[in-house]
């Protein structure tokens, strides 16, 4: 008699390992969401600085107030800073304005809260403090005045709300629609290459640890951070 013996036990074990591998992979991804959030958040901050410097060079009239005088678009002379806080579900990016440290070419004192005041389009009133009169020049002509001078828009009308507009545009569309596509972030996560890489060996044993390793590797090697920018 000719006999064939089928050992289902081995196949069942492989299937169990597959399920265990997949489960470990999924739970490790979830457990490390904050790493991914941090990575994307840090990437967005790095890119925002470049983006805004470029935008300011192209639109100096609108964004000169968030740089030191005469240095629009200069990375070393920014008057804004982005900070990030991260939790399991999200990364939150906040922008703050910095104090101007450099007097304007026609002044001896820095403009206190320059970026904030010009961004909000706030009116500024100048009073004499120690002298009897104020002295100023317009187009080379000298003026003396006793009493306050009111400047309706110290940064010009165009600066009002323009940093907020740029910030909204960046996070509202550019970062997700242009930059993450450019570094092929979505394509990376749409491709299960890393999952497949460890799958075959995981079915033979060590499924849980290999699942965790694959998930972590997938997140750590995602484009962005030090894996993309030059």
């Amino acid at each position, binding site marked *: 008699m000719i006999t064939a013996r089928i050992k289902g036990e081995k196949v069942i074990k492989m299937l169990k390992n597959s399920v265990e591998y997949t489960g470990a992979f999924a739970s490790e991804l979830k457990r490390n969401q904050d790493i991914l959030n941090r990575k994307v958040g840090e990437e967005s901050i790095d*890119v925002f600085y470049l*983006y805004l410097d470029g935008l300011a060079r*192209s639109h100096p009239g609108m964004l000169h107030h968030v740089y030191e005088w005469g240095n629009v678009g200069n990375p070393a002379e920014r008057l804004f800073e982005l900070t990030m806080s991260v939790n399991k579900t999200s990364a939150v990016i906040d922008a703050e304005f910095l104090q101007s440290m450099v007097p304007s070419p026609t002044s001896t004192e820095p403009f206190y809260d320059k970026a904030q005041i010009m961004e909000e389009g706030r009116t500024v009133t100048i009073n004499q403090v120690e002298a009897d009169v104020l002295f100023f020049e317009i187009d080379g002509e000298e003026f003396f005045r006793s009493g306050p001078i009111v400047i309706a828009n110290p940064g010009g009308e165009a600066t009002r709300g323009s940093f907020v507009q740029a910030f909204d545009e960046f996070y509202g569309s550019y970062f997700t629609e242009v930059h993450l596509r450019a*570094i092929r972030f979505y394509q990376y996560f749409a491709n299960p290459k890393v999952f497949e890489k460890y799958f075959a060996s995981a079915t033979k044993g060590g499924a849980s640890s290999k699942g965790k390793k694959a998930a972590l590797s997938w997140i750590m090697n995602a484009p962005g951070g030090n894996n993309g920018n*030059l």
Partner: protein
Amino acid sequence: MVIYRPENIINLYVWEQFKTHAPAFYNLYGPTSGGTDIVPFFPAPANNLPTAVLDNDLPYIMFDKFSRVRSGYKYFYPIKTDQMRYTIVGGSLYDINRNQQDRYATTINLTSLIQNILDREDDAAQDINEFTKNLPDYNDANYPELNRYSFHCVNVYQSGFTDTQQDVANFMEYNPTRDLIVKYDYHAKQFNE
């Protein structure tokens, strides 16, 4: 000898297309006798625009390369992805008819045309590569190899950031703008090749 950067090549390619598709604009910048022809693509900030542009209120395009990344896992490392911002400044096409409507129309039409010319992925890249075959100096035997480029893909995205504030005190000073972001993948010969 002219040494080209990728953004210069794209600018020249777009300008060449304007000859056919926007002759009213192209012909404003006629040949310069005894000097280099003006190609109205200027690096930002446009602090030193030719007086011919300012005096005649001509439309022009400002460009600023602001980002360079590796193109990620899809391509091999020599392939880079750069991005530049185009700011299209309307100006006037008609010297005797400088008005707001003309400037708006010019800005919007030029923006739309640039998008049509460049937002064609590998087709646009192939056309630019073809275009480089006729660039002055570029194909000379002693032109530096590291500054020869092969384009792979070009995309264009609209940016909503515009000079929306209007100088009502001086209407003629106001130039409406539109921004585009041009993304281009390319490679050049590597140092170790």
